[in-house]
Protein backbone atom coordinates (compact mmCIF):
# COMPACT_ATOMS: atom_id res chain seq x y z
CA UNK A 1 0.00 0.00 0.00
CA UNK A 2 2.70 2.43 0.95
CA UNK A 3 4.46 1.70 -2.28
CA UNK A 4 1.34 2.16 -4.35
CA UNK A 5 0.52 5.63 -3.11
CA UNK A 6 4.11 6.72 -3.17
CA UNK A 7 4.44 5.78 -6.80
CA UNK A 8 1.18 7.52 -7.67
CA UNK A 9 2.56 10.71 -6.21
CA UNK A 10 5.80 10.24 -8.04
CA UNK A 11 3.91 9.61 -11.28
CA UNK A 12 1.80 12.71 -10.91
CA UNK A 13 5.00 14.56 -10.21
CA UNK A 14 6.64 13.28 -13.36
CA UNK A 15 3.63 14.21 -15.46
CA UNK A 16 3.98 17.76 -14.25
CA UNK A 17 7.67 17.70 -14.98
CA UNK A 18 7.27 16.86 -18.67
CA UNK A 19 4.87 19.70 -19.41
CA UNK A 20 6.24 21.87 -22.21
CA UNK A 21 8.85 24.22 -20.79
CA UNK A 22 7.69 27.77 -20.41
CA UNK A 23 9.98 30.66 -21.17
CA UNK A 24 11.46 32.41 -18.13
CA UNK A 25 10.98 36.17 -18.27
CA UNK A 26 13.17 38.84 -16.71
CA UNK A 27 11.19 42.03 -16.20
CA UNK A 28 11.48 45.31 -14.39
CA UNK A 29 8.19 46.15 -12.70
CA UNK A 30 6.98 48.85 -10.34
CA UNK A 31 5.59 48.23 -6.88
CA UNK A 32 1.80 48.65 -7.03
CA UNK A 33 1.44 48.29 -3.29
CA UNK A 34 3.42 46.97 -0.37
CA UNK A 35 0.99 46.49 2.46
CA UNK A 36 2.16 45.88 6.04
CA UNK A 37 0.11 43.06 7.63
CA UNK A 38 1.72 43.36 11.04
CA UNK A 39 4.57 41.50 12.74
CA UNK A 40 6.92 42.02 9.79
CA UNK A 41 4.59 40.39 7.25
CA UNK A 42 3.90 42.24 4.01
CA UNK A 43 1.81 41.71 0.91
CA UNK A 44 3.61 43.01 -2.16
CA UNK A 45 1.67 43.64 -5.36
CA UNK A 46 2.99 44.28 -8.86
CA UNK A 47 1.66 43.75 -12.36
CA UNK A 48 3.26 41.66 -15.08
CA UNK A 49 0.61 40.27 -17.45
CA UNK A 50 2.88 37.96 -19.43
CA UNK A 51 4.25 36.29 -16.32
CA UNK A 52 0.84 36.18 -14.69
CA UNK A 53 -0.54 34.32 -17.69
CA UNK A 54 2.04 31.54 -17.44
CA UNK A 55 2.49 31.10 -13.74
CA UNK A 56 1.00 28.26 -11.67
CA UNK A 57 0.65 27.96 -7.89
CA UNK A 58 3.83 26.81 -6.15
CA UNK A 59 6.11 28.48 -8.65
CA UNK A 60 8.27 31.38 -7.54
CA UNK A 61 10.05 34.56 -8.57
CA UNK A 62 13.56 35.81 -8.00
CA UNK A 63 13.08 39.44 -6.99
CA UNK A 64 15.85 42.01 -7.12
CA UNK A 65 15.96 45.46 -5.60
CA UNK A 66 17.97 47.70 -7.93
CA UNK A 67 19.98 50.44 -6.28
CA UNK A 68 19.82 48.79 -2.87
CA UNK A 69 23.33 47.40 -2.83
CA UNK A 70 21.87 43.90 -2.41
CA UNK A 71 23.61 41.73 -4.98
CA UNK A 72 21.51 38.61 -5.44
CA UNK A 73 17.78 38.44 -5.98
CA UNK A 74 15.63 36.71 -3.38
CA UNK A 75 13.20 33.84 -3.99
CA UNK A 76 9.51 34.36 -3.20
CA UNK A 77 6.53 32.14 -4.01
CA UNK A 78 3.63 33.45 -5.98
CA UNK A 79 0.90 34.06 -3.40
CA UNK A 80 -1.70 35.75 -5.55
CA UNK A 81 -2.37 35.14 -9.23
CA UNK A 82 -4.97 37.16 -11.15
CA UNK A 83 -8.24 36.31 -9.46
CA UNK A 84 -6.79 35.09 -6.19
CA UNK A 85 -7.44 38.22 -4.14
CA UNK A 86 -9.29 40.35 -6.65
CA UNK A 87 -10.61 39.97 -10.13
CA UNK A 88 -8.72 42.08 -12.56
CA UNK A 89 -7.28 41.74 -16.00
CA UNK A 90 -4.06 43.66 -15.59
CA UNK A 91 -1.84 40.74 -14.64
CA UNK A 92 -1.67 41.54 -10.96
CA UNK A 93 0.64 39.27 -8.92
CA UNK A 94 1.13 39.10 -5.17
CA UNK A 95 3.95 38.01 -2.92
CA UNK A 96 3.53 37.47 0.80
CA UNK A 97 6.79 37.95 2.63
CA UNK A 98 8.21 38.27 6.08
CA UNK A 99 11.15 40.46 7.03
CA UNK A 100 13.99 38.06 7.90
CA UNK A 101 17.18 39.89 7.06
CA UNK A 102 18.75 42.48 4.82
CA UNK A 103 16.95 41.75 1.56
CA UNK A 104 13.47 41.53 2.99
CA UNK A 105 14.31 44.54 5.13
CA UNK A 106 14.97 46.62 2.02
CA UNK A 107 11.85 45.23 0.36
CA UNK A 108 9.73 46.30 3.32
CA UNK A 109 10.92 49.87 2.87
CA UNK A 110 9.87 50.19 -0.76
CA UNK A 111 7.04 52.53 -1.62
CA UNK A 112 4.60 52.47 -4.48
CA UNK A 113 6.31 52.85 -7.83
CA UNK A 114 9.69 51.56 -6.65
CA UNK A 115 11.39 49.38 -9.27
CA UNK A 116 11.82 45.63 -8.84
CA UNK A 117 13.51 43.17 -11.14
CA UNK A 118 11.43 40.02 -11.35
CA UNK A 119 12.50 36.71 -12.85
CA UNK A 120 9.81 34.10 -13.39
CA UNK A 121 7.97 31.80 -13.61
CA UNK A 122 10.52 29.62 -11.80
CA UNK A 123 10.29 26.08 -10.49
CA UNK A 124 7.77 23.35 -11.01
CA UNK A 125 4.72 24.32 -8.95
CA UNK A 126 2.27 22.04 -7.19
CA UNK A 127 0.61 19.02 -8.73
CA UNK A 128 -3.13 19.59 -8.30
CA UNK A 129 -4.90 16.76 -6.47
CA UNK A 130 -7.34 14.85 -8.67
CA UNK A 131 -10.96 16.00 -8.42
CA UNK A 132 -12.56 14.34 -5.41
CA UNK A 133 -9.30 14.11 -3.52
CA UNK A 134 -9.32 16.62 -0.64
CA UNK A 135 -6.25 18.86 -0.60
CA UNK A 136 -4.93 19.14 2.94
CA UNK A 137 -2.65 22.15 3.29
CA UNK A 138 -0.19 22.42 6.12
CA UNK A 139 1.36 25.86 6.44
CA UNK A 140 3.91 27.09 8.97
CA UNK A 141 3.89 30.87 9.38
CA UNK A 142 5.11 32.56 6.22
CA UNK A 143 4.92 29.11 4.58
CA UNK A 144 1.29 30.01 3.94
CA UNK A 145 2.48 32.22 1.06
CA UNK A 146 1.82 29.81 -1.85
CA UNK A 147 -1.59 28.61 -0.60
CA UNK A 148 -3.96 31.40 -1.66
CA UNK A 149 -3.18 30.87 -5.35
CA UNK A 150 -3.35 27.11 -4.84
CA UNK A 151 -6.67 27.30 -2.98
CA UNK A 152 -8.25 28.96 -5.99
CA UNK A 153 -6.84 26.34 -8.34
CA UNK A 154 -8.20 23.34 -6.41
CA UNK A 155 -11.48 21.81 -7.54
CA UNK A 156 -12.20 20.44 -4.06
CA UNK A 157 -12.28 22.91 -1.15
CA UNK A 158 -9.06 22.36 0.80
CA UNK A 159 -8.56 21.82 4.48
CA UNK A 160 -6.08 24.34 5.90
CA UNK A 161 -3.89 23.51 8.88
CA UNK A 162 -2.19 26.74 9.81
CA UNK A 163 0.50 26.82 12.46
CA UNK A 164 2.81 29.52 13.72
CA UNK A 165 4.59 30.79 16.79
CA UNK A 166 1.88 33.30 17.63
CA UNK A 167 -1.28 35.00 16.36
CA UNK A 168 0.68 37.73 14.56
CA UNK A 169 2.41 35.13 12.40
CA UNK A 170 -0.82 34.01 10.72
CA UNK A 171 -1.16 36.92 8.30
CA UNK A 172 -3.72 35.24 6.01
CA UNK A 173 -5.87 33.56 8.63
CA UNK A 174 -9.06 35.45 7.75
CA UNK A 175 -8.58 34.80 4.07
CA UNK A 176 -8.17 31.05 4.57
CA UNK A 177 -11.13 30.92 6.96
CA UNK A 178 -13.33 32.33 4.27
CA UNK A 179 -11.87 30.40 1.33
CA UNK A 180 -11.06 26.93 2.67
CA UNK A 181 -13.43 24.13 3.53
CA UNK A 182 -12.06 23.93 7.03
CA UNK A 183 -9.30 25.88 8.82
CA UNK A 184 -7.54 24.48 11.86
CA UNK A 185 -5.08 26.66 13.74
CA UNK A 186 -2.28 25.94 16.17
CA UNK A 187 0.09 28.46 17.74
CA UNK A 188 3.04 27.67 19.93
CA UNK A 189 1.95 30.26 22.48
CA UNK A 190 -1.73 29.42 22.20
CA UNK A 191 -2.64 33.00 21.30
CA UNK A 192 -5.05 31.71 18.69
CA UNK A 193 -6.27 28.18 17.94
CA UNK A 194 -4.89 25.30 19.91
CA UNK A 195 -1.59 25.53 21.72
CA UNK A 196 1.24 23.56 20.19
CA UNK A 197 2.49 22.43 16.83
CA UNK A 198 0.35 22.14 13.74
CA UNK A 199 1.11 18.42 13.47
CA UNK A 200 -1.25 17.74 16.41
CA UNK A 201 -4.46 18.89 14.66
CA UNK A 202 -3.14 17.27 11.46
CA UNK A 203 -2.85 13.88 13.14
CA UNK A 204 -6.31 14.25 14.65
CA UNK A 205 -7.78 15.24 11.30
CA UNK A 206 -6.17 12.22 9.61
CA UNK A 207 -7.39 9.78 12.25
CA UNK A 208 -9.65 7.19 10.69
CA UNK A 209 -9.66 8.81 7.28
CA UNK A 210 -8.83 6.81 4.18
CA UNK A 211 -5.49 8.06 2.74
CA UNK A 212 -6.93 7.63 -0.73
CA UNK A 213 -9.38 10.45 -0.11
CA UNK A 214 -6.91 13.24 0.58
CA UNK A 215 -3.43 14.53 -0.27
CA UNK A 216 -1.06 16.59 1.86
CA UNK A 217 0.63 19.72 0.59
CA UNK A 218 2.96 21.42 3.06
CA UNK A 219 5.11 24.53 3.16
CA UNK A 220 6.97 25.92 6.13
CA UNK A 221 10.17 25.60 8.12
CA UNK A 222 12.31 22.50 7.58
CA UNK A 223 11.56 20.88 10.97
CA UNK A 224 7.83 21.09 10.21
CA UNK A 225 8.33 19.60 6.76
CA UNK A 226 10.40 16.81 8.23
CA UNK A 227 7.71 16.00 10.78
CA UNK A 228 5.09 15.86 8.04
CA UNK A 229 7.28 13.73 5.83
CA UNK A 230 7.69 11.35 8.78
CA UNK A 231 3.93 11.18 9.16
CA UNK A 232 3.04 10.90 5.48
CA UNK A 233 5.64 8.62 3.95
CA UNK A 234 5.33 5.64 6.32
CA UNK A 235 1.53 5.90 6.10
CA UNK A 236 1.61 6.01 2.30
CA UNK A 237 -0.13 9.35 2.11
CA UNK A 238 0.44 11.43 -0.99
CA UNK A 239 2.44 14.41 0.16
CA UNK A 240 4.08 17.30 -1.64
CA UNK A 241 6.52 19.55 0.18
CA UNK A 242 7.47 23.02 -0.94
CA UNK A 243 11.09 23.50 0.06
CA UNK A 244 13.44 26.38 0.70
CA UNK A 245 17.15 26.68 0.11
CA UNK A 246 19.65 29.47 -0.30
CA UNK A 247 19.65 30.42 -3.96
CA UNK A 248 21.99 32.43 -6.10
CA UNK A 249 20.39 32.17 -9.54
CA UNK A 250 16.94 30.55 -9.33
CA UNK A 251 17.12 29.03 -12.81
CA UNK A 252 19.34 26.01 -12.41
CA UNK A 253 22.89 27.11 -13.14
CA UNK A 254 24.61 27.84 -9.83
CA UNK A 255 23.73 24.40 -8.32
CA UNK A 256 23.49 26.22 -5.02
CA UNK A 257 19.94 25.36 -3.99
CA UNK A 258 20.20 21.63 -3.57
CA UNK A 259 18.47 19.31 -1.13
CA UNK A 260 19.51 15.70 -0.53
CA UNK A 261 17.23 13.25 -2.31
CA UNK A 262 17.22 9.50 -2.80
CA UNK A 263 19.19 8.87 -5.97
CA UNK A 264 18.49 6.08 -8.43
CA UNK A 265 21.76 4.44 -7.43
CA UNK A 266 20.51 4.20 -3.84
CA UNK A 267 22.88 6.93 -2.73
CA UNK A 268 22.10 10.50 -1.88
CA UNK A 269 21.64 12.83 -4.82
CA UNK A 270 21.65 16.61 -4.63
CA UNK A 271 18.59 18.00 -6.39
CA UNK A 272 18.26 21.65 -7.36
CA UNK A 273 14.99 22.87 -5.98
CA UNK A 274 14.84 25.88 -8.28
CA UNK A 275 14.23 23.69 -11.32
CA UNK A 276 13.29 20.24 -9.98
CA UNK A 277 11.38 21.86 -7.08
CA UNK A 278 10.57 23.82 -5.00
CA UNK A 279 7.81 21.19 -4.76
CA UNK A 280 9.02 17.63 -4.23
CA UNK A 281 7.14 14.45 -3.29
CA UNK A 282 7.90 13.82 0.39
CA UNK A 283 9.33 10.37 -0.32
CA UNK A 284 12.10 11.83 -2.48
CA UNK A 285 13.71 13.71 0.42
CA UNK A 286 16.79 12.11 1.97
CA UNK A 287 17.05 14.35 5.00
Amino acid at each position, binding site marked *: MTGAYASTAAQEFLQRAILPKI*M*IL*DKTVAVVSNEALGNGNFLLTFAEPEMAAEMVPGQFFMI*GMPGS*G*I*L*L*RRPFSVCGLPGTFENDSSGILQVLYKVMGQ*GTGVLAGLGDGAPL*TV*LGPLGNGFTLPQPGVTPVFVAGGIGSAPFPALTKACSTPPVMLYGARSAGDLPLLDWFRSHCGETLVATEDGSVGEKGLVTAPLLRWMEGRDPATYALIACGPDPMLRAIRNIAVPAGIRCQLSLE*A*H*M*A*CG*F*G*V*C*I*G*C*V*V*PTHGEDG*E*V*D*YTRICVDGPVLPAEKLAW
Partner: protein
Amino acid sequence: MVTPDMTTTVAGIEFKNPVLTASGTFGYGLEFTDFLDLDRLGGLVTKGLSAAPRKGNPPARVVETPAGMLNAIGLQNIGVPSFLADKLPKLREYDTKVIANVFGATEAAYVEACRMLDGAEGLAGIELNVSCPNTEEGGMIFGVDPAALGHVTRLCRKETKLPLIVKLSPNVTDIRLMARCARDAGADALSLVNTFVGMAIDVERRRPVLANVCGGLSGPAIRPLAVWLTWQVRQAVEIPIIGIGGIMSARDVVEFLLAGASAVQVGTASFVTPSASADIVTELSNWLSERNIASVRELIGGLEVPPRG
Protein backbone atom coordinates in the same frame (compact mmCIF):
# COMPACT_ATOMS: atom_id res chain seq x y z
CA MET B 1 30.50 56.91 -34.46
CA VAL B 2 32.68 53.97 -35.47
CA THR B 3 31.49 50.40 -35.24
CA PRO B 4 34.33 49.10 -33.13
CA ASP B 5 36.30 45.99 -33.93
CA MET B 6 35.52 43.77 -30.96
CA THR B 7 37.65 40.76 -31.88
CA THR B 8 40.44 39.53 -29.69
CA THR B 9 42.72 36.52 -29.71
CA VAL B 10 43.72 34.49 -26.68
CA ALA B 11 45.78 31.30 -26.78
CA GLY B 12 45.32 31.24 -30.55
CA ILE B 13 41.53 31.24 -30.19
CA GLU B 14 39.85 34.05 -32.10
CA PHE B 15 36.94 35.45 -30.14
CA LYS B 16 34.35 37.69 -31.79
CA ASN B 17 34.46 39.84 -28.69
CA PRO B 18 36.33 39.77 -25.40
CA VAL B 19 33.33 38.79 -23.24
CA LEU B 20 33.23 35.16 -22.13
CA THR B 21 31.23 33.62 -19.33
CA ALA B 22 32.98 32.16 -16.29
CA SER B 23 33.02 28.52 -15.32
CA GLY B 24 30.34 27.47 -12.84
CA THR B 25 28.21 30.53 -13.47
CA PHE B 26 26.85 29.65 -16.89
CA GLY B 27 26.02 25.97 -16.54
CA TYR B 28 26.68 24.27 -19.83
CA GLY B 29 25.46 27.32 -21.73
CA LEU B 30 22.17 25.85 -22.88
CA GLU B 31 20.41 26.92 -19.68
CA PHE B 32 20.68 30.53 -20.90
CA THR B 33 18.87 30.34 -24.20
CA ASP B 34 15.76 31.90 -22.63
CA PHE B 35 17.77 34.98 -21.80
CA LEU B 36 20.25 35.66 -24.57
CA ASP B 37 21.51 34.54 -27.92
CA LEU B 38 24.66 32.52 -27.26
CA ASP B 39 25.99 33.71 -30.63
CA ARG B 40 26.44 37.15 -29.10
CA LEU B 41 29.13 35.95 -26.69
CA GLY B 42 32.84 35.85 -27.34
CA GLY B 43 32.82 32.46 -25.72
CA LEU B 44 31.55 30.38 -22.87
CA VAL B 45 33.37 28.29 -20.32
CA THR B 46 31.58 25.22 -19.00
CA LYS B 47 30.98 24.30 -15.40
CA GLY B 48 34.09 22.53 -14.07
CA LEU B 49 34.18 19.01 -15.54
CA SER B 50 35.82 15.92 -14.10
CA ALA B 51 36.41 12.62 -15.84
CA ALA B 52 33.55 11.08 -13.85
CA PRO B 53 30.40 12.88 -12.62
CA ARG B 54 30.44 14.32 -9.09
CA LYS B 55 27.71 14.98 -6.57
CA GLY B 56 29.22 17.96 -4.81
CA ASN B 57 28.87 19.28 -1.27
CA PRO B 58 25.86 19.13 1.04
CA PRO B 59 23.81 22.34 1.40
CA ALA B 60 23.87 25.20 2.27
CA ARG B 61 26.14 25.90 -0.67
CA VAL B 62 25.74 29.63 -1.30
CA VAL B 63 25.29 32.77 0.78
CA GLU B 64 25.37 36.46 0.00
CA THR B 65 28.01 38.69 1.60
CA PRO B 66 28.57 42.44 1.14
CA ALA B 67 28.81 43.01 -2.64
CA GLY B 68 29.63 39.35 -3.09
CA MET B 69 28.70 35.76 -2.50
CA LEU B 70 30.36 32.70 -1.08
CA ASN B 71 29.89 29.37 -2.81
CA ALA B 72 30.88 25.85 -1.91
CA ILE B 73 29.22 23.86 -4.66
CA GLY B 74 31.92 21.23 -4.45
CA LEU B 75 32.28 20.87 -8.19
CA GLN B 76 29.05 18.95 -8.79
CA ASN B 77 29.07 18.15 -12.51
CA ILE B 78 27.84 15.70 -15.09
CA GLY B 79 31.32 14.43 -16.03
CA VAL B 80 33.19 14.70 -19.31
CA PRO B 81 31.42 11.79 -21.09
CA SER B 82 27.94 13.26 -20.54
CA PHE B 83 29.21 16.66 -21.56
CA LEU B 84 30.56 15.25 -24.81
CA ALA B 85 27.44 13.20 -25.49
CA ASP B 86 24.64 15.52 -24.38
CA LYS B 87 25.88 19.11 -24.29
CA LEU B 88 28.64 19.66 -26.80
CA PRO B 89 26.59 18.51 -29.85
CA LYS B 90 23.94 21.11 -28.99
CA LEU B 91 26.55 23.78 -28.33
CA ARG B 92 28.07 23.16 -31.76
CA GLU B 93 24.93 24.69 -33.26
CA TYR B 94 25.94 28.06 -31.87
CA ASP B 95 28.55 30.39 -33.26
CA THR B 96 30.57 30.97 -30.13
CA LYS B 97 33.75 29.47 -28.69
CA VAL B 98 33.23 26.72 -26.14
CA ILE B 99 35.94 26.15 -23.56
CA ALA B 100 35.84 23.19 -21.21
CA ASN B 101 36.82 23.91 -17.62
CA VAL B 102 38.53 20.84 -16.19
CA PHE B 103 39.63 19.69 -12.78
CA GLY B 104 40.65 16.52 -11.03
CA ALA B 105 41.41 15.29 -7.56
CA THR B 106 44.75 13.91 -8.68
CA GLU B 107 47.16 14.55 -11.51
CA ALA B 108 45.92 11.38 -13.16
CA ALA B 109 42.34 12.65 -13.03
CA TYR B 110 43.31 15.94 -14.69
CA VAL B 111 45.17 14.06 -17.38
CA GLU B 112 42.28 11.70 -17.99
CA ALA B 113 39.78 14.54 -18.37
CA CYS B 114 42.08 16.33 -20.83
CA ARG B 115 42.63 13.20 -22.83
CA MET B 116 38.88 12.56 -23.09
CA LEU B 117 38.31 16.12 -24.33
CA ASP B 118 41.18 16.25 -26.81
CA GLY B 119 39.97 16.40 -30.37
CA ALA B 120 36.32 16.89 -29.44
CA GLU B 121 34.57 18.62 -32.30
CA GLY B 122 33.45 22.11 -31.46
CA LEU B 123 35.68 22.53 -28.45
CA ALA B 124 37.88 25.63 -28.72
CA GLY B 125 40.10 25.03 -25.71
CA ILE B 126 40.59 23.71 -22.22
CA GLU B 127 40.75 25.78 -19.05
CA LEU B 128 42.48 24.00 -16.19
CA ASN B 129 40.91 24.80 -12.87
CA VAL B 130 43.80 24.39 -10.47
CA SER B 131 42.29 26.64 -7.91
CA CYS B 132 38.94 25.58 -6.56
CA PRO B 133 38.94 26.17 -2.83
CA ASN B 134 35.83 24.14 -2.11
CA THR B 135 36.76 20.51 -1.97
CA GLU B 136 39.57 18.71 -0.28
CA GLU B 137 40.42 17.09 -3.58
CA GLY B 138 39.48 19.98 -5.85
CA GLY B 139 42.92 20.94 -6.95
CA MET B 140 43.67 23.69 -4.42
CA ILE B 141 47.09 22.23 -3.79
CA PHE B 142 47.85 22.67 -7.49
CA GLY B 143 46.76 26.27 -7.22
CA VAL B 144 49.04 27.31 -4.37
CA ASP B 145 52.13 25.15 -4.81
CA PRO B 146 54.25 26.32 -7.74
CA ALA B 147 55.87 22.94 -8.32
CA ALA B 148 52.56 21.07 -8.28
CA LEU B 149 51.04 23.64 -10.62
CA GLY B 150 53.92 23.31 -13.07
CA HIS B 151 53.76 19.55 -12.99
CA VAL B 152 50.04 19.13 -13.58
CA THR B 153 50.12 21.73 -16.34
CA ARG B 154 52.97 19.94 -18.09
CA LEU B 155 51.15 16.61 -17.94
CA CYS B 156 47.92 18.09 -19.32
CA ARG B 157 49.84 19.93 -22.01
CA LYS B 158 51.06 16.58 -23.31
CA GLU B 159 47.54 15.14 -23.47
CA THR B 160 45.91 17.70 -25.70
CA LYS B 161 46.54 19.74 -28.79
CA LEU B 162 43.78 22.13 -27.76
CA PRO B 163 44.76 25.58 -26.53
CA LEU B 164 45.45 25.29 -22.81
CA ILE B 165 44.42 28.03 -20.40
CA VAL B 166 45.45 27.75 -16.75
CA LYS B 167 43.13 29.40 -14.25
CA LEU B 168 45.07 30.77 -11.32
CA SER B 169 44.10 30.98 -7.67
CA PRO B 170 44.30 34.38 -5.98
CA ASN B 171 44.97 32.78 -2.59
CA VAL B 172 48.74 33.04 -2.85
CA THR B 173 51.51 35.34 -1.64
CA ASP B 174 52.94 35.94 -5.10
CA ILE B 175 50.76 35.23 -8.11
CA ARG B 176 53.56 36.20 -10.49
CA LEU B 177 55.46 33.10 -9.46
CA MET B 178 52.44 30.91 -10.21
CA ALA B 179 51.99 32.64 -13.57
CA ARG B 180 55.58 31.95 -14.55
CA CYS B 181 55.32 28.30 -13.53
CA ALA B 182 52.20 27.81 -15.62
CA ARG B 183 53.74 29.52 -18.61
CA ASP B 184 56.96 27.52 -18.36
CA ALA B 185 54.91 24.33 -18.21
CA GLY B 186 53.23 25.14 -21.50
CA ALA B 187 50.10 27.18 -20.74
CA ASP B 188 48.99 29.18 -23.78
CA ALA B 189 47.14 31.68 -21.64
CA LEU B 190 46.18 32.37 -18.04
CA SER B 191 42.81 33.17 -16.60
CA LEU B 192 42.46 34.89 -13.26
CA VAL B 193 41.07 34.96 -10.76
CA ASN B 194 39.16 32.13 -9.22
CA THR B 195 37.40 32.85 -5.94
CA PHE B 196 39.01 33.99 -2.68
CA VAL B 197 38.52 31.73 0.34
CA GLY B 198 36.05 33.13 2.83
CA MET B 199 33.56 32.17 5.50
CA ALA B 200 30.23 33.38 6.86
CA ILE B 201 28.85 32.49 10.27
CA ASP B 202 25.23 32.16 11.32
CA VAL B 203 25.59 33.99 14.62
CA GLU B 204 22.33 32.70 16.07
CA ARG B 205 23.10 29.04 15.43
CA ARG B 206 26.83 29.58 16.01
CA ARG B 207 27.62 27.57 12.90
CA PRO B 208 29.20 28.23 9.54
CA VAL B 209 26.46 29.12 7.05
CA LEU B 210 27.98 26.81 4.46
CA ALA B 211 28.08 23.09 5.18
CA ASN B 212 31.61 23.11 3.74
CA VAL B 213 32.62 25.68 6.42
CA CYS B 214 34.45 27.87 3.89
CA GLY B 215 33.55 28.91 0.38
CA GLY B 216 34.83 30.97 -2.50
CA LEU B 217 34.12 34.70 -2.59
CA SER B 218 33.05 36.14 -5.94
CA GLY B 219 31.27 39.24 -7.13
CA PRO B 220 32.00 42.99 -7.19
CA ALA B 221 33.65 42.86 -3.76
CA ILE B 222 36.71 41.13 -5.25
CA ARG B 223 37.06 43.25 -8.37
CA PRO B 224 39.79 45.60 -7.04
CA LEU B 225 41.78 42.58 -5.90
CA ALA B 226 41.37 40.81 -9.24
CA VAL B 227 42.34 43.91 -11.23
CA TRP B 228 45.51 44.24 -9.17
CA LEU B 229 46.41 40.58 -9.71
CA THR B 230 45.81 40.97 -13.45
CA TRP B 231 48.17 43.92 -13.52
CA GLN B 232 50.75 42.00 -11.48
CA VAL B 233 50.64 39.00 -13.83
CA ARG B 234 50.83 41.34 -16.82
CA GLN B 235 54.23 42.52 -15.53
CA ALA B 236 55.42 38.96 -15.02
CA VAL B 237 54.56 37.05 -18.20
CA GLU B 238 53.86 37.83 -21.85
CA ILE B 239 51.21 35.16 -22.57
CA PRO B 240 47.63 36.44 -22.82
CA ILE B 241 45.45 36.88 -19.75
CA ILE B 242 41.72 36.45 -19.32
CA GLY B 243 40.55 38.74 -16.52
CA ILE B 244 37.86 37.56 -14.09
CA GLY B 245 36.35 38.93 -10.91
CA GLY B 246 33.26 40.97 -10.15
CA ILE B 247 32.56 42.21 -13.67
CA MET B 248 29.07 43.71 -13.77
CA SER B 249 29.33 46.25 -16.60
CA ALA B 250 31.34 47.36 -19.64
CA ARG B 251 33.25 49.80 -17.44
CA ASP B 252 34.48 46.87 -15.37
CA VAL B 253 35.56 45.03 -18.53
CA VAL B 254 37.62 48.05 -19.55
CA GLU B 255 39.33 48.06 -16.16
CA PHE B 256 40.60 44.51 -16.76
CA LEU B 257 41.57 45.21 -20.37
CA LEU B 258 43.58 48.27 -19.36
CA ALA B 259 45.27 46.23 -16.63
CA GLY B 260 46.44 43.79 -19.26
CA ALA B 261 43.72 41.24 -19.94
CA SER B 262 43.03 40.30 -23.59
CA ALA B 263 39.54 39.04 -22.72
CA VAL B 264 37.37 38.68 -19.65
CA GLN B 265 34.88 36.31 -18.07
CA VAL B 266 31.60 37.37 -16.51
CA GLY B 267 30.68 35.25 -13.49
CA THR B 268 28.34 36.10 -10.63
CA ALA B 269 26.68 38.81 -12.74
CA SER B 270 24.90 36.05 -14.69
CA PHE B 271 23.12 34.96 -11.51
CA VAL B 272 21.95 38.50 -10.79
CA THR B 273 20.87 39.21 -14.37
CA PRO B 274 20.78 36.14 -16.61
CA SER B 275 21.40 38.23 -19.73
CA ALA B 276 24.33 40.12 -18.14
CA SER B 277 27.05 38.73 -20.42
CA ALA B 278 25.27 39.64 -23.64
CA ASP B 279 24.16 42.99 -22.21
CA ILE B 280 27.80 43.76 -21.45
CA VAL B 281 28.80 42.97 -25.05
CA THR B 282 26.35 45.60 -26.30
CA GLU B 283 27.34 48.08 -23.63
CA LEU B 284 31.04 47.61 -24.39
CA SER B 285 30.51 48.14 -28.09
CA ASN B 286 28.64 51.37 -27.37
CA TRP B 287 31.27 52.48 -24.88
CA LEU B 288 33.94 52.13 -27.55
CA SER B 289 31.91 53.89 -30.26
CA GLU B 290 31.07 56.82 -28.02
CA ARG B 291 34.79 57.33 -27.47
CA ASN B 292 35.73 56.68 -31.09
CA ILE B 293 37.92 53.75 -30.19
CA ALA B 294 38.26 51.68 -33.33
CA SER B 295 39.32 48.39 -31.77
CA VAL B 296 38.86 46.90 -28.34
CA ARG B 297 42.43 45.67 -28.62
CA GLU B 298 43.66 49.25 -28.22
CA LEU B 299 42.69 49.00 -24.59
CA ILE B 300 44.65 45.84 -23.76
CA GLY B 301 47.41 46.73 -21.33
CA GLY B 302 46.73 50.38 -21.98
CA LEU B 303 47.11 51.50 -18.39
CA GLU B 304 49.39 54.50 -18.04
CA VAL B 305 51.26 54.75 -14.79
CA PRO B 306 52.42 58.32 -14.36
CA PRO B 307 55.76 58.86 -12.67
CA ARG B 308 55.35 59.41 -8.94
CA GLY B 309 55.36 62.78 -7.29
